């Protein structure tokens, strides 16, 4: 791979903001379905084509996510579902999946998701202008997780600090390991308590979860707790920012968002496609293979071009048009195959509930005129800032 020169050598998809990511992708598409680009200073393969990405997600012989995650995240994240494979993955995932299935997630909407959305809306009452990413999009999914885990409100800031640091291992190994120690000691206390006095909450159910007669040990449960934050909070908040930018920026879509649950489901699906929060997903190949006419060697790194596949014109006509009426079944934002995002239903219900509650509470909310929205990030992507006026022009 080192011998292969990346296209667009002036762009590093890890370090640069790539505000024009979708334009770059369209240009790269002209060079083939799998192209070399620069990431963390080195050449990697970027998969742009929807069918090939679908194949790669399902090809665990050549693209098992475990090897890559063991390098970039295991020291601080521990034994998460991302590094498990085969039987261990199947059993561990099945044990926790009941907590994330449609029926269960529906019950979270009224009990958990809606009250948090209202709470955050209360906080912006009376303000003429609000930065919506920090004011709502970011704390919303984070708080859903801390409340699911039974963490008292007074400790939420502490948890945020640890959660941000846990995934920082490649850049700050010592800081990440310190965060792990703090997080583990804290969460072990909650887990021990629920083992002694189960109260039917999420942690109690997790402690008791079993599949085919096997329960999860503490090591796996702690790995699961750690994974919840980067997997469920960072992704959802990025997408919530993009979603509201699109909805508030277009009167017709905004009107549709005030309609039925089905309308909001369509808008959220289109938001997930149009600006996937995990835009490019790094992965290390686990075996030599040919993909899209290029030879990928074992140990080489790739970027799974989720946002590129979501804009593949062969699958989504006029892909850069935000059109909630399109058929979004081929959406690939949550991956494919056995490692498909466990929190997909939770993420969607959070985003749909956010749309409903925000527009109920602030019917005149609008983007602040004159402030442009810039989407940033090659891996995790969303608007840098989103300035809104909750009371409109008033």
């Amino acid at each position, binding site marked *: 791979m080192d011998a292969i020169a990346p296209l667009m050598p002036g762009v590093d998809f890890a370090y640069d903001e790539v505000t024009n990511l979708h334009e770059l992708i369209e240009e790269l598409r002209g060079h083939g379905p799998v192209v070399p680009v620069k990431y963390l200073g080195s050449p990697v393969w970027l998969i742009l084509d929807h069918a090939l990405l*679908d194949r790669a*997600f*399902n090809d665990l012989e050549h693209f098992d996510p475990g090897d890559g995650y063991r390098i970039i995240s295991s020291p601080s994240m521990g034994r998460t579902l991302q590094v498990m494979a085969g039987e261990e993955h*199947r059993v561990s*995932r*099945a044990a926790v*999946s*009941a907590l*994330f*299935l*449609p*029926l*269960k*997630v*529906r019950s979270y909407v009224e009990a958990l998701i809606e009250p948090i959305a209202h709470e955050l809306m209360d906080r912006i009452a009376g303000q003429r202008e609000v930065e919506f990413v920090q004011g709502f999009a970011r704390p919303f999914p984070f708080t859903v997780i801390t409340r699911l885990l039974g963490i008292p409100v007074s400790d939420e800031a502490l948890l945020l600090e640890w959660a941000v640091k846990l995934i920082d291992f490649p850049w700050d190994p010592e800081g990440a390991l310190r965060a792990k120690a703090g997080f583990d000691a804290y969460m072990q206390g909650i887990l021990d308590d629920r083992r002694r006095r189960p109260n039917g909450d999420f942690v109690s159910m997790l402690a008791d979860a079993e*599949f*085919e007669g096997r329960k999860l040990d503490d090591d796996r449960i702690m790995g699961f707790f750690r994974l919840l934050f980067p997997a469920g909070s960072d992704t959802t908040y990025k997408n919530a920012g993009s979603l509201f930018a699109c909805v508030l920026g277009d009167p017709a879509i905004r009107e549709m968002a005030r309609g039925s649950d089905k309308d909001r*489901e369509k808008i959220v699906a289109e938001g997930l496609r149009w600006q996937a929060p995990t835009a490019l997903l790094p992965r290390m190949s686990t075996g030599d293979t040919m993909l899209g006419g290029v030879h990928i060697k074992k140990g080489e790194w790739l970027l799974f071009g989720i946002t590129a596949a979501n804009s593949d014109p062969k699958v989504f006509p006029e892909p850069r048009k935000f059109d909630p009426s399109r*058929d979004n*079944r081929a*959406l690939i934002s*949550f*991956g*494919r*195959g*056995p*490692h*498909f995002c*466990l929190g*997909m*239903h939770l993420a*969607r*219900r959070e985003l749909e509930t956010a749309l409903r509650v925000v527009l109920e509470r602030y019917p005149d909310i609008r983007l602040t005129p004159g402030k442009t929205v810039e989407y940033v990030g090659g891996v995790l992507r969303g608007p840098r800032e989103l300035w809104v006026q909750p009371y409109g022009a008033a």
Partner: protein
Amino acid sequence: MRINFIDETGVHHTFDGVAGDTVMRCATEHAVAGIIGECGGAMACATCHGYLAEPWFSMLPPPSTQEREMLSGCIGLKANSRLTCQIQLEDRLDGITVEVPNSQV
């Protein structure tokens, strides 16, 4: 072989199915509303739930433990519920009829 889908309004849609394909794949290829199959058939998303009519329901091999676990979290579970990604088409299932639920979520 033929495969029938009954949508939420009661309208029947009939297609030619290919032996070896899954019911879910047939539904998504023909854009049958209400069957999503977002994970691609790995029993990881629970968005391809459907109700299987008789006699076909009884002709199918029973669901695996994993499929049963996933079904238990689906909306509107009935005795003839299945994940359609787990049903492989074969010639003896000619005429198989699947009712699509009102909502997967």
